[in-house]
């Protein structure tokens, strides 16, 4: 994801509080350099802890996605999320699952989870998912799910 660079005021230690807060958030979430004057080791520790916390929150929303990666989950998520500020754990997990499915990297055990969500909700990748009003049939990584009146059936496993 591309975002405008943080205000250079944050790099020099000057600038308004708003500029400096924006530069700090950019550095934490979008892979920008640590603002001038901050302890690099501690800042990095905070960045890594934040990614671990985000991975845990995504696990709660997308349990099968996390299960599919097993012990590699935290690292897999951190690599994907390092330069992507959170859109909330539901959307973060959804975006990652779609990315993985596109490059044939979605774990098989997570296919039904994604197909079920795709059938139940309309998600444009940019704003909050909305539940579908009409029936939908969706396939993800070989799993097919059917939703009618809010109920979802898995028709075919991966």
């Amino acid at each position, binding site marked *: 994801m591309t975002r405008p660079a943080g205000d250079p005021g944050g790099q020099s230690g000057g600038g308004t*509080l708003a500029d400096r807060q924006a530069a*700090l958030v950019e550095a934490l979430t979008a892979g920008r350099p640590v603002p001038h004057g901050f302890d690099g080791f501690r800042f990095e520790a905070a960045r890594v802890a934040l990614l671990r916390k985000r991975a845990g929150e995504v696990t709660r929303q997308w349990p099968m996605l996390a299960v599919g990666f097993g012990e590699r989950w935290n690292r897999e998520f951190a690599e994907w999320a390092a330069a992507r*500020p959170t859109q909330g754990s539901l959307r973060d997990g959804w975006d990652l699952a779609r990315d993985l499915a596109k490059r044939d990297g979605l774990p098989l055990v997570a296919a039904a989870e994604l*197909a079920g969500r795709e059938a139940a909700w309309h998600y444009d990748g940019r704003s909050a998912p909305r539940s579908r009003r009409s029936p939908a049939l969706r396939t993800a990584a070989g799993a097919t799910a059917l939703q009618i009146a809010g109920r*979802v059936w898995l028709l075919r496993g991966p």
Partner: protein
Amino acid sequence: MVAAGAAVAVAEDQPSRRPRAALASGVGIGWRPEIAGFVEGLPGLRFVEVVAESVPAHGELPGGLRTLLDRGVTVIPHGVRLSLGGAEPVDATRVEHFAAVADRLGAPLVSEHIAFVRAGGVEAGHLLPLPRTREAVDAVVANVRLLQQSLTVPIALEPIAALFDWPDDELTEAQFLTEILDRSGAHLLLDVANVYANARNRGTDPLDLLDDLPLDRVAYVHVAGGAEHQGLYHDTHTDAVPEPVLELVAALCARHRPPALMLERDGDYPPAPDLAAELDEIAKASGYPAVT
């Protein structure tokens, strides 16, 4: 199993204000859906705290929470996303939700953090520290005052645990916090685990901060666990409460015992007996009756 679209209960607009509950007292716990059954089974429980953003302003309350309210347990909404320390004015929609939740829970008090969580339209996903400057004090106080216009009850502000500090602090932590409390009229939500974590990571004495804070302004206290990684202590809320944090609880209570203390646990939940033992330890360290 395939996740289905959750059935959303549609409630009519109903009068959603409960009678004001009693102030928090004794030993409590942070209510989370994952441990709702455990919390409901605590016979002596008088108060819980709930993440304000997880409570709907209208419609069905989470079942476990409704049971506690019906039993007369005080429920305090604890905001985590208002970003009161942001340089930008606090978001009106978030304020409206926060105030509505406080009303429907009949909360005698609400709480939030001295921190920011977003800037320039980007969410950090975490509570971030402020520079201890007069400009930051002004920003917090302005936002707390905006929030107070929508609230009918007092607010308590919680200083956070931070792994890093800003390079240009003008004030000590106690000066920074006291100035914010004095100018906003807010109470203090003191997190003893945060005090411990910050002191340990900065190489300072946590008792010095206790000595310098206005302890008579403490509305209630958080207690939580953490763990060390690469020489830094992380306030994880997913580990057991370490002994030094309990010792700090006792040291705090020896100076000025707060009216209420609570355990914060946010994941990796241990078996119920372990969680109960942690509550008992907090009761023992503070001299309040056990709630288990």
